[in-house]
């Protein structure tokens, strides 16, 4: 297999590490050496030649090839079976509505949240159970890391270069979660978003850090969801009032109360849309009185419509916890869901 990339020789594993760190090609953690063999295995898995065009980054016009994604995926620790997810996530990120350049360059410091649905989760061992939003398993850890290394190396999304984040958050190392489809009666997120039942898919969202909440003192769906809505209101007061895609991560303990009450994901979204609203005047209570101006009575919704809520069943079996994952900056970036492997000619999908 012929590669376009320049190759380097290194005497030892530590020499490889120093080569990549000194060139600014890492996230600060050690990398897996991207040898020709390892990169070739990834490309063979997805049946793509090295120069396969995955897409053109819409703002700077950079051509993103399968070879470059594969090199970065190997560096992140991906096995060939993880690579289809990386390719699909990047295809999704290059859709115009995701606004990848803005989302990854912004001072707002969001990360790309990757949500996995469908049978591929089981094939690659991606777990949506214990520690779902963190180091739950190998697959989600390395896939999330691959997304970031690709951003660093392909788009120059290095801190202080294109990445102008003031703070960022730990999800910028890796931010990938698999939905726990086996342990819920709810429809998978991807099906809600139009992907046929049984297809594997990837959803990407420009996302802030998870805001964890707790309510183990009720079994009433309305009360449980009120805690989620309150956390969204807090985000609107303390961070951004812009409406957009929010994700709710609902682990089993709270999920079972909602399911027992007959609540579907659509019911959850409808309730949350009604409750996650604030008056502009509330900003005065949190030190932002200067921007209330004469519009204190205006009401703002966290989402334009219920279908902007991404409800995800994930988390360990015990604990009355949940999480709200807020958008980077409302509708400036829209979450994108794409099925894996349906693009037989591998052209970027057109709207």
């Amino acid at each position, binding site marked *: 297999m012929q590669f376009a990339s320049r190759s380097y020789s290194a005497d030892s594993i530590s020499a490889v590490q120093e080569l990549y760190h000194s060139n600014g090609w890492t996230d600060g953690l050690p990398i897996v*050496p991207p040898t020709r063999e390892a990169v070739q295995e990834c490309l063979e898995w997805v049946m793509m030649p090295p120069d396969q065009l995955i897409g053109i980054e819409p703002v700077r*016009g950079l051509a993103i090839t399968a070879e*470059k994604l594969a090199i970065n995926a190997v560096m992140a620790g991906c096995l060939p079976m993880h690579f289809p997810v990386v390719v699909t996530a990047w295809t999704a990120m290059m859709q115009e509505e995701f606004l990848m350049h803005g989302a990854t360059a912004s001072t707002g410091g969001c990360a790309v949240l990757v949500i996995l649905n469908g049978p591929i989760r089981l094939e690659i061992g991606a777990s949506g159970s214990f520690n779902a939003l963190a180091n739950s398993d190998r697959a989600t850890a390395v896939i999330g890391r691959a997304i970031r290394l690709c951003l660093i190396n392909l788009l120059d999304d290095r801190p202080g270069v294109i990445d102008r984040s003031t703070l960022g958050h730990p999800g910028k190392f890796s931010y990938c979660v698999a939905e726990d489809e086996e342990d819920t009666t709810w429809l998978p997120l991807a099906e809600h978003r139009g992907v046929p039942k049984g297809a594997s898919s990837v959803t990407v969202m420009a996302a802030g850090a998870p805001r964890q909440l707790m309510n183990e003192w009720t079994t009433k769906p309305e009360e449980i969801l009120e805690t989620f809505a309150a956390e969204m209101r807090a985000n609107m007061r303390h961070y951004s009032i812009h409406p957009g895609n929010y994700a709710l991560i609902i682990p089993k303990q709270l999920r079972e109360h909602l399911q027992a009450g007959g609540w579907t994901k659509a019911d959850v979204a409808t309730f949350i849309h009604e409750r996650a609203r604030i008056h502009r005047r509330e900003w005065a209570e949190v030190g932002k009185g200067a921007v209330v101006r004469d519009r204190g009575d205006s009401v703002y919704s966290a989402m334009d419509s219920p279908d902007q809520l991404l409800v995800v069943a994930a988390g360990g079996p015990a604990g009355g916890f949940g999480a709200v994952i807020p958008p980077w900056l409302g509708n400036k970036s829209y979450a994108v869901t794409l099925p894996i492997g349906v693009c037989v000619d591998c052209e970027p999908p057109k709207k």
Partner: protein
Amino acid sequence: MFEVLDPTPGTAPPAGRLAPRLDTLEGKTVGFISNGKEGTKGFFKHLDQILREEYGVAKVVSRTKSNYSAPADPHIVAEIKGWDAVVSGLGD
């Protein structure tokens, strides 16, 4: 011995070319493209004054992007042809 591959594009992205530098600002039209953030307001107001009063700029055209995180809107980009110079500013 490891033989490892470069993870970067290796080539620079296609870049725009800077317009030739002006000999003078006297009598020229200067366009401002603001990203619309709070910090741009005072900056561009002050710059407008300096350009007119100290450099003899004939006309300042101010435009604000509809989305501060996205490239300038096509209608703003189309207007640039009528300007002699552009100042594109961030508010952060």
